[in-house]
């Protein structure tokens, strides 16, 4: 199975799930799609990895963060994919904390769940989740991730250009590739190129959330409302 997604090695995904099987699976799926992966087994560990402790962003002055909120160079995360039902902090709790954090809120979050509960799906999307995947997650589902990651990376790099004029990031300009390209040839049904929101007509079980949800709603969380419909 030859994967030629070399550009993906620049993307780093943080995977969160308490189930060791699902963690191993999502890790393999992401690596097969040529993403870098860090997998943790809880929401609190995820927040620690992101440099955010369970108290507020801006609380304890005595705390010495290993990563300061304004500088993610060391642990840049381009996407968080998390299970929903987890002991302690659920995926929804984690989503909320990420979106409430000034330093993290631009990171796209994807929720995975084995249960198809429309109310749950809606709640997650309204809280700012980009996608909601039903488990078990398939390789084809991961094609939906790239547009979210690219959008954030381009935005971050433009912000970086404004702040640090002496450090140009030239490569970002060349990343504007057409979205939704199938990553592997081994998928049973190759996808036509289309918007990531209109997906996979063969698979109505999986993307229940798309019925009745307008694109604007899922994009609501992006600052400035610049919705580059890819």
């Amino acid at each position, binding site marked *: *199975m030859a994967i030629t997604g070399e550009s993906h090695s620049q993307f780093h995904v943080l995977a969160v799930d308490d*189930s*060791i*099987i*699902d963690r*191993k*699976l999502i890790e*393999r*799926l992401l*690596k*097969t799609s040529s993403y870098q992966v860090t997998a943790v087994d809880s929401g609190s560990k995820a927040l620690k990895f992101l440099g955010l402790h369970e108290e507020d962003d801006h609380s304890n002055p005595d705390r010495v963060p290993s990563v300061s909120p304004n500088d993610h160079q060391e642990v840049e995360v381009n996407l968080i994919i998390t299970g929903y*039902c987890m002991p302690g902090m659920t995926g929804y709790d984690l989503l909320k904390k990420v979106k409430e954090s000034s330093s993290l809120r631009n990171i796209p979050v994807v929720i995975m769940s*084995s249960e198809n509960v429309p109310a749950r799906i809606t709640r997650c999307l309204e809280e700012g989740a980009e996608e909601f995947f039903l*488990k*078990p997650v*398939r*390789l084809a589902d991961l094609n939906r991730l790239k547009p979210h990651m690219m959008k954030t990376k381009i935005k971050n790099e433009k912000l970086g250009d404004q702040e640090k004029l002496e450090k140009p990031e030239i490569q970002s300009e060349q990343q504007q590739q057409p979205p939704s390209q199938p990553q592997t040839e*081994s998928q049973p049904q190759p996808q036509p190129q289309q918007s990531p929101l209109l997906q996979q007509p063969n698979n109505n079980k999986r993307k229940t959330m798309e019925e009745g949800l307008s694109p604007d709603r899922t994009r609501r969380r992006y600052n400035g409302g610049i919705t580059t419909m890819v």
Partner: protein
Amino acid sequence: MLGWGVDRLRADMSRLLAILFHQGVLDEQFLQLQQLQDESSPNFVSEVVNIYFHESEKLFTKSQGPTCKTDGYCDCRLDREFSDYKKMGIHLNQFMGSSSSIGANRVRNVCVAFRAASEQNNRAGCLRALELLEHEYCYLKNKLHELFQMEQQRVLAAGARYPLQQQQQQQH
């Protein structure tokens, strides 16, 4: 003669898999696992499945209760007392999820039935579901064990036949 062994093993494995799919013991998620196995992760399927069995053992108690009736590799007992429905429910949900993730279709379906019975406080239904669960789980474990043994033999036989190409032969 070794070559004939490899081909025959491969045919036997295909036949076994076909039976398991036909019976609904495995579903397409298992195929997805196979697709994820390649040169960079040549034992992915058996690794995941072994984790699954290891994790699932937590559901079973080693203390009292009859052993499951299937002969062979499996040796599991389910706790028929289940005085703590809630705890059992949590384990069952996890077990249901991981069964679904590896494509263990029939096991997953019995978990669903068990959950329905426990939500209705239907003790007889729960007992029945647990019996079925034991049976399905043991059957699955035995068959997958058989499959992985065949795979190991196939790899060995292929290696003996083409020692320089053993790396490639490990591909599914």
